[in-house]
């Protein structure tokens, strides 16, 4: 197992290199002149040049790149252009609200969709199955923005159950503001998830070992919930765990519409205000997080699927 982990870590290095390279090319090279942006709209050419030197932009590309790498390792993300605050502080403050939304949504979605998909596979082609199938298809054919707007309009505006907008930084107060976006986030995900999981379960049911299990006289329920489930969980876990790193980014859409001060909102405002340092920082941070958490996934995967352990 130790060798397996070491090999995976080794594999991460060229990817990290690639990510920093792409980010560098994209933002530093293609993204307009940072010095002009930083100096402000009314700066003179001399001031812009001075800014350039101060930001190290007059040095050759390679040096700039290495500087960027150094900054990443020291977690020095710099300052936001629009708010002039330290980005690392902005990130730290944004994590809490984002996770308050995404983690409950993630868990709830799984708790609802996996059992539902399992039951649908068990009762395949029944009325229950078919009506849920149609509902899921309908759910995924509607734009997410619609759910947000409709939710705000009917539930907050017309019915007044939840606030339309805003945030309470206290631990108790925030759930009032999380409730509606949470509901919407779950609705957005369960449609596609249920359809996918159901397909996985159904395909697994055509495997030979299912025929063997039936030939032993096992009741259909045991065949499905014990034999099929554990096998089907492998592709499901693979996919589900890939989503975890992105939880920290929050939801761009929901946070911006509901005014939740999370990382998604941070990115949204950065896009609106062309705030490159923030976008760059978020890009790299999420990429690194993704790589690291993928490693954790692979290890978890090895624990579930006995075949992988012996590579």
């Amino acid at each position: 197992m130790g060798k397996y982990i070491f090999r995976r870590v080794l594999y991460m290095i060229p990817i990290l290199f690639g990510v920093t390279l792409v980010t560098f090319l994209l933002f530093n090279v293609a993204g307009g002149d940072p010095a002009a942006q930083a100096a402000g709209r009314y700066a003179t050419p001399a001031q812009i040049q001075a800014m350039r030197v101060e930001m190290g932009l007059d040095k050759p590309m390679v040096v700039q790149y290495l500087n960027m790498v150094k900054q990443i390792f020291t977690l020095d993300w710099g300052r936001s252009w629009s708010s002039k605050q330290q980005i690392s502080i902005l990130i730290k403050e944004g994590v809490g609200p984002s996770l308050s939304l995404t983690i409950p949504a993630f868990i709830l979605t799984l708790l609802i969709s996996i059992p539902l998909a399992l039951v649908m596979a068990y009762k395949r082609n029944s009325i229950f199955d078919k009506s849920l199938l149609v509902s899921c298809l309908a759910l995924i054919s509607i734009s997410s923005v619609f759910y947000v707007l409709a939710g705000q309009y009917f539930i907050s505006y017309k019915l007044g159950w939840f606030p339309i907008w805003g945030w309470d930084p206290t631990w108790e107060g925030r759930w009032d503001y999380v409730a509606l976006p949470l509901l919407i986030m779950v609705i957005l995900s369960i449609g596609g998830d249920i359809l996918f999981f159901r397909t996985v379960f159904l395909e697994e049911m055509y495997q030979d070992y299912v025929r063997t299990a039936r030939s032993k006289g096992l009741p259909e329920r045991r065949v499905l919930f014990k034999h099929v489930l554990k096998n089907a969980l492998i592709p499901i876990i693979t996919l589900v765990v890939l989503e975890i790193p992105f939880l920290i980014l929050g939801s761009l859409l929901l946070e911006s519409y509901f005014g939740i001060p999370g990382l998604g909102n941070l990115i949204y405002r950065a896009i609106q205000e062309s705030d490159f340092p923030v976008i760059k920082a978020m890009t790299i941070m999420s990429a690194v997080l993704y790589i690291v958490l993928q490693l954790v996934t692979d290890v978890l995967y090895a624990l579930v699927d006995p075949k992988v352990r012996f590579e």
Partner: protein
Amino acid sequence: MKGKSLWSDARSRLRRDPIGMISFVVICGYLLVALLCATHLGFKGYNVVDNSIAYQEPSVVHWFGTDIFGRDVFDRAAHGTITSLTVGFFGAGLSVLIGTILGAVAGYFGGFADELITWFYTTIDTIPYILLVVAFSFVMGPSLTTLCLAIGLTSWIRHCRVVRAEFLKQRERDYVQAAAALGSGNLRRIFVHILPNTFHLILINFTLGFISAVKSEVILTYLGLGVKPGTPSWGAMISDARLELSRDVWWGLAAATIFMFFLVLAFTLFNDALRDALDPKLKSR
């Protein structure tokens, strides 16, 4: 006597699938609407400005009411079809093209080419999609072309993985080995033998990409990275709805959502029907 190819087998299976056929008709319907709009033969009210009837409720004359400038909302939604179909077709098309080329090269030749391409798409995959698209849009400025390019250049990874895996598998199959034994070179093996046997995957992934592109257009427009303001698009109509709803004007949102709903649903169902027709062993219904 003409033989029955696998394609004609698939076609006849598809024809016997009522849901598949209905979805196909619906898609053709949308194509027709787009054509009528583009040639200005129908839905002409989308551009008729009349501030006196701004924000009128749906009525017999204006099925979905009017917008802020008094333009017919129904006709505007109809014109949005052009935007969505364009984004869907070119976005998905580009993504499938890139994915196929890179996937084929990686899967067939293996070795260094494979390592390089795999490293490349793993890297891009690690960066959140939205941030990539943002970067593109910044560089190129918001427009329909940008949208197509941005979506096409960022969503090819999934298809690339699939094509790569398929080429890896087919490369070892006996019929390809037989071609090698008969003296055929690499190009012939790739284009005459393996590629035709991956078309079904390309088709399926194209429709999936289409759906995802249409939905992405809405989000990207909301972020301000979509089409030029003024061009009718479902994304624009849904984005504008935010302000409209505070004035209880719901018909813009409704029109765009309903138009998009049936197109996406039709494509989704058609995709399922295609899957079943092209490989009946995978019946997941």
